[in-house]
C-alpha cells in the first residue's frame, strides 16, 4: 500500500448510498466513498489488502480484529468504516516499519513462543501494545484482566502473558531513552511512518 490509489473507490465523488470517508492508515492518507454497512475490518482486509487483522467471530467477542484508532485499541469488526472518518488507524502492518527491527512486542511474542497457529496473534499484539501504553501491564493479574478481550484457542496464554511482561519493560526503557529527544509517544512515532 503506497498511496490512496490502493483504494479502488478512492478519488471519486460519492455515489448514491455511499459515504465519503477520509482516514489515515499506517501513516498513509486515504479517501474513499463507502457503503456504510462495511466494517473497518473489511475495509482493511478486502479493499486495502491489509490482512493482518483477522476476522474471528465478527461480533467483537474474540479480539482477532484488534487495531488502533487514534492510538486506542478497538474491535475493527464492530467499527463501521465510516466511523473511522478523520481518524488515524494503525494495524499490525504499520507497527514496525519495513526495514526496521520488530516492535519489542512482536519480538517478545517470538521469544516467548506466545503463539501456536498464529491466527489471533496480530490482534493479541495490537491489544498488548495498547495494554502497555495504557499502564495496564504492571502485573500478570492485570495483564490477564486487560487482555481478556483476546481469545487464543491454541491456549498460548502463558506465553502471551510472559511476552507482554517482557515487552512492557523494554517499551518502558525505550520510552525513557527517547523522552530526552522527543515528546512524541511511541504510538505517534509508529503512526507517522
Amino acid at each position, binding site marked *: 500500500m503506497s498511496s490512496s490509489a490502493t483504494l479502488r473507490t478512492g478519488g471519486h465523488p460519492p455515489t448514491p*448510498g455511499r*459515504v465519503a470517508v477520509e482516514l489515515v492508515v499506517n501513516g498513509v492518507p486515504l479517501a474513499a466513498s463507502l*457503503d*456504510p*454497512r462495511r*466494517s473497518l475490518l473489511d475495509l482493511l482486509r478486502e479493499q486495502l489488502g491489509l490482512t493482518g487483522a483477522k476476522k474471528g467471530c*465478527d*461480533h*467483537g467477542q474474540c*479480539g482477532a480484529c*484488534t487495531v488502533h484508532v487514534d492510538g*486506542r*485499541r*478497538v*474491535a475493527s469488526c*464492530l*467499527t*463501521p468504516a*465510516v*466511523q473511522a*472518518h478523520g481518524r488515524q488507524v494503525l494495524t499490525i502492518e504499520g507497527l514496525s516499519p519495513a526495514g526496521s527491527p520488530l516492535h519489542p512486542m512482536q519480538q517478545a511474542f517470538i521469544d516467548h513462543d506466545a503463539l501456536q497457529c498464529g491466527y489471533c496473534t496480530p490482534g493479541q499484539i495490537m*491489544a498488548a501494545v*495498547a*495494554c502497555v501504553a*495504557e499502564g*495496564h501491564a504492571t502485573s500478570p493479574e492485570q495483564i*490477564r*484482566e*486487560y487482555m*481478556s*478481550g*483476546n481469545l487464543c484457542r491454541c491456549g498460548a496464554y502463558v506465553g502471551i502473558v510472559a511476552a507482554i511482561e517482557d515487552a512492557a519493560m523494554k517499551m518502558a526503557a525505550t520510552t525513557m531513552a527517547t523522552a530526552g529527544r522527543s515528546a512524541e509517544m511511541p504510538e505517534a512515532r509508529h503512526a507517522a511512518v
Partner: protein
Amino acid sequence: MQPFDYVRATSVADAVRAFGAAGPDTRLLAGGTTLYDLMKLGVETPAHVIDVNGLRELETIDTSQPDELVFGALARMSDVAADPVIAGEYPALAESLWRAASQQLRNMASVGGNLLQRTRCAYFRGGEPFACNKRAPGSGCAAQEGIDRGHALFGGSEACIAVYPGDWAVALAAFEAQVDVEGPHGPRSLAIEALHVEPGRTPDVETTLAPGEIIVRIRVPKTPLGRASTYHKIRDRESYAFALVSVAAALRMEGDMVAEARLALGGVATRPWRVRAAEAVLRGQPFTPALARRAGEAALSGARPGRMNAFKVELGIRAVADALSIARQRG
C-alpha cells in the same frame, strides 16, 4: 445486513432535529458495539442511522461540580473507568465499567449508549426460527420452555424473561443517578430507575424514552456512600463475560453501625434491580457477616426461578453478602 442511509449529526440540536423528524426505523449510532452487532445479526434493521460520534461536547467527564458527577453521554466507558476521582471515590462506578466487556469495546462504547444495551438472550439474538416477543412482538417466548439458565429471577412476564445485560446502569441505580435527555419537546431529566421498564406484555418497549429523545448526560449525586462501595460481578469465567449475578453495594458507616446502605442487582432481572427491602435490613444495624447474609436473603426473596437458573438464588445471596463485606472494608 439491510441497507440503510447514514448521516453524521454535527450538533446536539442537529441530532435532536434529525432524530425527532425520523420514523421508528431510525437508530442513533454511538459506539456501535450493540447496534452494529445486532444489525449484522439482522435483529436491528434500521433504514436510517444517525451517527452522533462527532458531538464532542457530549464527551465531558466533570467531577469538579460541588454536588454531582457529570458524564456526557458520549464519554467512553474506558475513560470514565480510568478517571482518578471515579476510580478512587466511587469504586462501584469504576468497577461496573471495567468489569464489563473488553478494553477494546470499552474504548468504543459510550456511557449513554451503554444504558440502552439490549439483552443477550440467545433467542432474541438468534433470530428465526426462535420465537421472541422482544424481537418480533406476538411471536412468543422461546426462553420459557428453552434454555433459561441465564434468564431473569425478577421482573419477568409470560411474554419475556430476558435479562437486562448492563452493569453501569445497575451501579447508577444504587447511586440514584439522573439521566438528562433532549427531544422534540425539549429537555427533561429522569431518575435512572425510571428509564428502564419491565417487559410486561410489550417486551419490545424497553425504556420510557419518547420517540426522538436522546440521552445527553448522566448525573450522579456526590455522596459519602461512594467510597465504601463495590460492583461485585460473578461470571462463568473470571473476566470478559456477562454477569450471572452482580451486586452494586454502597455503605455509609458510623463506627460499626450501618447508617445507610444501597444495593442493586444485575444479571438476575429484566431491568436494573434496586433492592430497598435489603437496604432496610442493614440500616441502623451493627455490620456482621450474618447481617450481610440476611441482607442477601432479603435481596433475593421473591425470586421466581425457571427450570435451569435456580442456582442463581443462593449465588445471589452470597454475592450480596460478599459485596457488602468488600464495601465494608473500604469504609
